[in-house]
């Protein structure tokens, strides 16, 4: 008799666990799916924006480098040096890696360098904002 009730007791305890695990598994799968989708959506938006910005600086820098490269005066040389430095900074910057530790710091460095380049080129400091606001329809010259 005591063996039987032990068995029954075990059954109950195990069933208790088993049902919890059963629900857990199902929930875990659903949670994983949701987390994956939500995470991916947020990640894509962040990655796209940051990459767009860095790439913009790169395209801007490389174009100016092409435009100025044949000038030999001191002013142009100074500008070219800053441009080289901007391009170098961007090339070294693994901006596509979300797990890169200094992502934010390095992004700030790139932005600072871009601002420096703009000031050397006498491009208005709000230039990149103007370019960005073009996207939301607030185009103003």
């Amino acid at each position, binding site marked *: 008799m005591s063996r039987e009730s032990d068995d029954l007791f075990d059954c109950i305890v195990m069933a208790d666990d088993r*049902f919890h695990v059963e629900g857990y598994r199902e929930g875990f799968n659903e*949670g*994983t799916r949701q987390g*994956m989708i939500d995470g*991916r*959506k947020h*990640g894509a938006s962040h*990655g796209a924006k940051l990459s767009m910005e860095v790439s913009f600086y790169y395209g801007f*820098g490389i*174009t100016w480098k092409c435009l100025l490269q044949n000038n030999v005066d001191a002013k142009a040389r100074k500008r070219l040096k800053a441009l080289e430095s901007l391009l170098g900074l961007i090339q070294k910057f693994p901006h596509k890696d979300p797990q890169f530790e200094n992502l934010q710091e390095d992004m700030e460095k790139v932005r600072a360098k871009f601002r420096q380049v703009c000031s050397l080129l006498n491009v208005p400091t709000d230039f990149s904002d103007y370019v960005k606001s073009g996207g939301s329809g607030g185009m103003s010259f």
Partner: protein
Amino acid sequence: MSWVKSVQYSGEDVFDEDADDINLQDKEWKYNMKKRVKDGYVDGIDHGKEASLQLGFNMGYREGAEKTIAVGRLKGVISAIQCWCQFQRPDNPIPASVADLLQRVVKHEDYIMEAMRMGLENPMPSVSDVSETMEDLAVGEGEMSCGGAGCSKGSGCCKKSSNVELGSFFFTVPGESLEQLLQCCMDIVSELGLPLELIQHLEQLKSATE
């Protein structure tokens, strides 16, 4: 359900004497077990999300970053050309073709962001891949308390499945193609007599997007 069997197993006619009582216990048992399943489900959802959010973020980040390089560069190129025109010919207005292309590129950028957002809203192609990932994640359920005590930032726990490949999502960007915009930019570079290196750079971008 399997618990019914377990009760019947040791039940037999002993319990038949008191059928009402059994029914009541039966209901209570059912209720409790349902609750256990539900509790487990809720715990599971939380842990599943914890375990996969970062993974999903990292994956999406790389995908998103990859898809905006070319358009970002093109915008940079055309913006620089616009500035250049302002400096070179301060008394003339910026060529309409340049200003127009810049606007089209900015529009294209918006389209990409929007199409990507929509594409990820319903990531149908990757559902089966996701379920594979779920199995991978579920294997180590015992240590699945990611984000908990065992999982400091950068420890192996979350990284375990970081090389799981999910199907890449596909989306179509409406309007002009990037190739068309790049071609248009090359035409402008030629028209304005700007350095050939610029064309080369644009050619590179074009071949990278094909």
